[in-house]
């Protein structure tokens, strides 16, 4: 059995908790720093929740708890740049789903208000090396604001790394949203041209609506600022406008979901016209828009394990997407765009590497790249002195399905890698 010993991990975790201030040294491990060269055999010292030292010839400080890293590889904690972790427990059980608000425009919905610190999904993701994730609302035109969370902590505040990270918007496609209750209606008889015309009309209407909202928010923000400096009365409280104002000013990033080439190009143009700080999410056809993505420096959050958009597309279009973006110089992160499947993030990166993305960039796209896109690269995403001590100890290449994660540290504290799944495994594996 290759399963890591839970008791060992628990013991380690307990030791780390009781001696939180004592430094920890991981000795003799292969250290993949991501930001710099890989150290084939080195030592990594964690102290005060930060990385205190790292290198081939680093001395173990007196009183440090020593972890034997020989034969192991240490990576920065993985970051899943788009999830609904903490916002959904069981997909089909409405009571456990907090991903979307009623209505179409919810800029004032904040993921960090509803992130469930005791979700069973968080330890499952963590046990495969994830230490941080973007928890993002979904649905409607303006879904709300996302939070970058660490996968450890017992309150929403304790989970929070950065809030807000971005405003989440679905780029309007003009298509009616999927409605199960209408699935069985008689289809309306319309020609292709009529449908296209209608779609375009709806899309333009939604874009005008979005532009109007932003204009209104800008004015609201200006009035608010003016009142603060004593010029005029403050505007009536308006939470949606207050939330949108920093987006309209181009201060808070907007993560727009768009997959089609035309929609991605449309989003880039809209953002440029409006002066928004844009990130594309989804980006299934981003490889067809590298020119504008590069020109406008728009990063993309890509989910790799998808079918191509069109029948005529190359069969590997989604797999090759990150490799093509890399070649063209477009910034991107690989994301799961899921919650329960978040643990498979390294394998999405692996698929990208099988189809053209260099392996070290694949690893970067689930560590340092998302940290850069979210403006937290000074704290997480790579193994560097002074950064948060978020790291993973693995038995080999973390992109390989056969590799076991044997240790996870968040802010220098060893985390349990026990999960709902390992508990059920222990409970039933020997049942006669």
């Amino acid at each position, binding site marked *: 059995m290759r399963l890591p010993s839970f008791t060992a991990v628990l013991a380690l975790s307990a030791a780390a908790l009781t001696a939180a201030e004592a430094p920890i040294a991981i000795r003799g491990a292969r250290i993949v720093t991501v930001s710099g060269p890989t150290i084939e055999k080195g030592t990594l010292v964690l102290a005060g929740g930060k990385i205190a030292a790292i290198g081939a010839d680093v001395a173990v400080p007196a009183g440090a708890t020593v972890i034997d890293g020989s034969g192991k590889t240490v990576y920065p904690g993985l970051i899943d740049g788009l999830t609904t972790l903490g916002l959904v427990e069981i997909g089909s059980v409405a009571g456990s789903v907090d991903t979307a608000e009623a209505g179409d425009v919810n800029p004032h919905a904040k993921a960090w208000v509803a992130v469930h610190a005791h979700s069973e999904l968080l330890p499952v993701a963590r046990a495969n090396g994830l230490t941080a994730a973007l928890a993002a609302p979904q649905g409607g035109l303006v879904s709300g604001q996302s939070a970058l969370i660490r996968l450890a902590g017992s309150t929403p505040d304790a989970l929070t790394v950065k809030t807000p990270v971005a405003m989440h918007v679905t780029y309007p496609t003009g298509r009616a949203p999927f409605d199960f209750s209408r699935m069985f209606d008689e289809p309306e008889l319309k020609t292709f041209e009529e449908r296209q015309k209608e779609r375009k009309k709806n899309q333009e209407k939604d874009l005008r609506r979005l532009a109007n909202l932003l204009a209104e928010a800008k004015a609201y923000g200006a009035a608010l600022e003016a009142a603060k400096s004593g010029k005029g009365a403050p505007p009536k409280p308006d939470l949606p406008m207050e939330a949108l104002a920093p987006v309209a000013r181009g201060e808070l990033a907007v993560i727009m979901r768009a997959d089609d080439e035309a929609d991605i190009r449309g989003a880039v143009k809209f953002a440029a016209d409006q002066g928004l700080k844009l990130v594309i999410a989804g980006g299934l056809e981003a490889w067809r828009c590298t*020119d504008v993505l590069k020109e406008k420096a728009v990063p993309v959050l890509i989910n790799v394990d998808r079918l191509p958009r069109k029948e005529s597309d*190359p069969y590997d279009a989604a797999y090759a997407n990150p490799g093509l973006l890399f070649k063209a110089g477009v910034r991107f992160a690989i994301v799961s765009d899921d919650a329960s499947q978040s643990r498979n993030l390294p394998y999405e990166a692996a698929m990208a590497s099988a189809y053209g993305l260099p392996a070290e960039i694949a690893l970067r796209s689930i560590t340092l790249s998302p940290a850069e896109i979210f403006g937290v690269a000074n704290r997480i995403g790579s193994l560097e002195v002074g950064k948060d001590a978020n790291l993973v100890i693995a038995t080999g290449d973390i992109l390989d*399905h056969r590799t076991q994660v044997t240790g996870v540290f968040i802010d220098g504290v060893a985390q349990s890698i026990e999960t709902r799944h390992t508990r059920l495994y222990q409970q039933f594996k020997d049942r006669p």
Partner: protein
Amino acid sequence: MRRLAYVASAVLLLPSLTLAAEASKNVTAIVGGTLITVGPQGTIEKGTLLIKDGKVAAVGKELTVPAGATVIDAGGRYVMPGIVDAHSHTAIEDNVNECTDSVTAEVRIADVIDHRDINIYRELAGGVTTINVLHGSCNAIGGQNAVLKLRHGKEPEELVFKEAPRGIKFALGENPKRSNFQVPGQKRYPGSRMGVEVVIREAFLEAKAYRREWEEYQKKLAAAGAKGEKPVAPRKDLRLEELRDLLDGKVLVHAHCYRSDEILMLIRVAEEMGFKIRTFQHVLEGYKVASEIARHGAGGSTFSDWWAYKMEAYDAIPYNAAIMASKGIRVSLNSDSDELARRLYWEAAKTVKYGGVSEAEALKMVTLNPAWQLGIDKRVGSLEVGKDADLAIFSAHPFAADTRVEMTLIEGTVYFDRAKDLASREKPVEKHDQKDAPKGGAQ
């Protein structure tokens, strides 16, 4: 326009496919690769595999390649049996569920095969050669399956794996009771797991009565022959015909299920009625009742690690395959998805991680085990002399982090060749981009 370009390139590919088909009548030799046979010969490094008339003619280390043979150089590559997906809904477009009744044993997937489904090709590109196309999980007793070989470009009849035994889909739990898909204004029995049991029990009681009725008629007919009388035949019922054949052991039952209680329920009903369950599909709580499943003799076809998407999947664990296998159940990993089907080799690798399944056993879970579950293991699932030459050639070990399918063959004919695929992409994308992009486009 791009669609036209695609059709054009497909037409261009046709002559080469025809040539390959003719060549396979003679001999094809795959040389220099690591042969993962998934059979008694184990793994052979720098091996040779000879194909004659679509069958594996020889597998070994130092084989002589006959003069005039078509040679495929697999140097540095890995050759494994074509992947068998025991749970697919590919190539039937929207014809997955006949949802209007709780028992629809009369409907046949084979009647609705869409041979133009592009996912056939996409799955070939993931090393898949055989799929079990199942009816949906809308009803306690659903429709009849169709086992297909992914002979992309051929007519529907030519896709069907003719020698595969008949099979039928059952479904238990949330889907047949429609808990997550309530159609407005439509309430259908069953609405609970209690009702699912009743539906299945009643259906088989009816089928037994139907069988008796026909047996009595046959007796009367035999007796009447002498007297010159003409007894009236019972009314033919296509639904009950299928269930009667199932009771007679002619139809393999593939039962969609999640929770352990419903698994035990079906075993009870089956044993009482006198039929066998060939596979439990999904069977996400199979690990809780693995011994009972093993005793019944059913296989388990599961997801590697899907969980939490609905209530009955909340106790799903990635160790399911490992635990079931350890109790002697023949386990396969399926896709139930056109997308996941393309990377089943990695789904197998996950069982090495979760529960320590050996790599050899893990590979069986996407080849020989699903072949057994579909009753076609004498034909496919391993690289053995006399079996169909269905195989996939990978750029690296199928479990490696950067592996990729380079070529897929069915009965000796190349149906997917990445090099040819890349060459056939005659830049329709650039043309498209020139229209919109200011500076000549991207890729």
